């Protein structure tokens, strides 16, 4: 600090010189008509370029805010006009809700921790019980199913990723539910497997796999993935079906936690609840 002060003291005349030269610059280009015109002309082109540069830069820097804004817009859209919302949420409005409110709502959140290299992968989101997130809520990305909430505190929640050997989800292909389980076999972070689809079923490579109506966690019609390979086992009546997940788990950043508004009303009616 002393050295800095000594440096400033020693060079104060130079600092003063620079300051006064700046003032001169303002005087020259502000009060001399000819220089002012030249300056304005030059400044206009420099300003245009710097504005462009600034715009490019700030639009990039602003992406995070834009994402958050988009999330809230999607949430509102999902809440108020599910018909025009995401394609995979379209079925939501088919629910004949007497109060004419959507059965499902989406709570936007950001992934702050995510694994894809373990056998039982999880991800952590930056929203918790303060915004109504609880255990056993579905989590989707803008591409498709991402996981299920395992536990929450006030501000954070941990979700079981689809890439988790404990995750089991009922697939729906060509509007038909297959009561076999879609599982992750811990091989590839973009590939899941459906065990035992009967060879008589009309499924083919490229078919989309969606969530069905057998779960209260996800609205029906949310993409899970696309059939990538149908493997025939010799002497077997079944296919081993490989699915490429819709969600890119390695790039998972923004998600929506699915809130079922009537879960507390529906669950007690279920046979299991008795």
């Amino acid at each position, binding site marked *: 600090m002393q050295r800095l002060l000594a440096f400033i003291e020693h060079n104060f005349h130079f600092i003063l010189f620079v300051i006064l030269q700046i003032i*001169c*610059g*303002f005087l*020259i*280009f*502000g009060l*001399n008509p000819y220089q002012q015109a030249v300056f304005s002309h030059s400044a206009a082109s420099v300003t245009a370029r710097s504005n462009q540069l600034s715009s490019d830069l700030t639009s990039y820097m602003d992406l995070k805010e834009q994402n958050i804004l988009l999330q809230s817009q999607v949430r509102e859209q999902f809440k108020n006009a599910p018909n025009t919302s995401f394609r995979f949420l379209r079925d939501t409005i088919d629910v004949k809700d007497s109060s004419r409110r959507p059965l499902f709502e989406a709570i936007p959140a950001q992934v702050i921790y995510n694994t894809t290299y373990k056998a039982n992968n999880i991800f952590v989101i930056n929203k918790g019980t303060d915004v109504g997130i609880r255990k056993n809520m579905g989590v989707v990305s803008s591409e498709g199913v991402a996981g299920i909430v395992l536990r929450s505190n006030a501000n954070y929640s941990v979700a079981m990723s689809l890439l988790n050997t404990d995750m089991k989800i009922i697939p729906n292909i060509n509007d038909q539910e297959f009561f076999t389980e879609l599982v992750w076999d811990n091989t590839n972070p973009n590939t899941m497997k459906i065990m035992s689809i009967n060879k008589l079923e009309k499924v083919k490579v490229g078919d989309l796999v969606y969530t069905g109506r057998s779960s209260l966690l996800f609205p029906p019609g949310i993409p899970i993935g696309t059939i990538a390979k149908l493997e025939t086992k010799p002497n077997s009546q079944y296919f081993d079906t490989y699915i490429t997940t819709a969600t890119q788990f390695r790039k998972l950043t923004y998600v929506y936690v699915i809130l079922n508004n009537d879960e507390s009303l529906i669950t007690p009616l279920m046979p299991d609840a008795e």
Partner: protein
Amino acid sequence: MLSRVLYYILIFALQVLLFNHLDLSAFLVPQVFIILLITLPLQTKKIYQVLIAFGLGILADFFVSTPGIHTSACLSLVMMRMAILNTQDLKEEIANKLSYTARNVGVLPFSYTVLILVFFYHLYVFWIGSIGAINMYNLLVTTFISSVFSLTVIAIFQFLSLSHSRE
């Protein structure tokens, strides 16, 4: 002290009343008043030199309606003067609180300094004045003619000063 103030006023008055209105040629715009900065007392603190240059430049601009141009040139001149004087051995003159004149520091080092500073000042002022439409030929000819004229006037002043001291 009084004689120095009168000397300052005389030189500046000559600049404002005479040299600014010569009208002999479009290429002749001598800036003789800069001798006041060049001959500043050697013991003057650098910060005061900068402030004096600023004040004198503002005054010069005021009389020719060129806000900032002479001020900027005076500031640059005084900084360049500091750099040149650093290369000269002036410890004795500084200790005796002498001004930087031919009589005090010798004709040769003084001429060397004045030559550089006068050319620099004229080039700077005419360059800033014609910014945006610089005609190199006009710029250099004006700088050369005006500098030679200013140097002649400064030489006359210094010669008179030397003669006066010998008497």
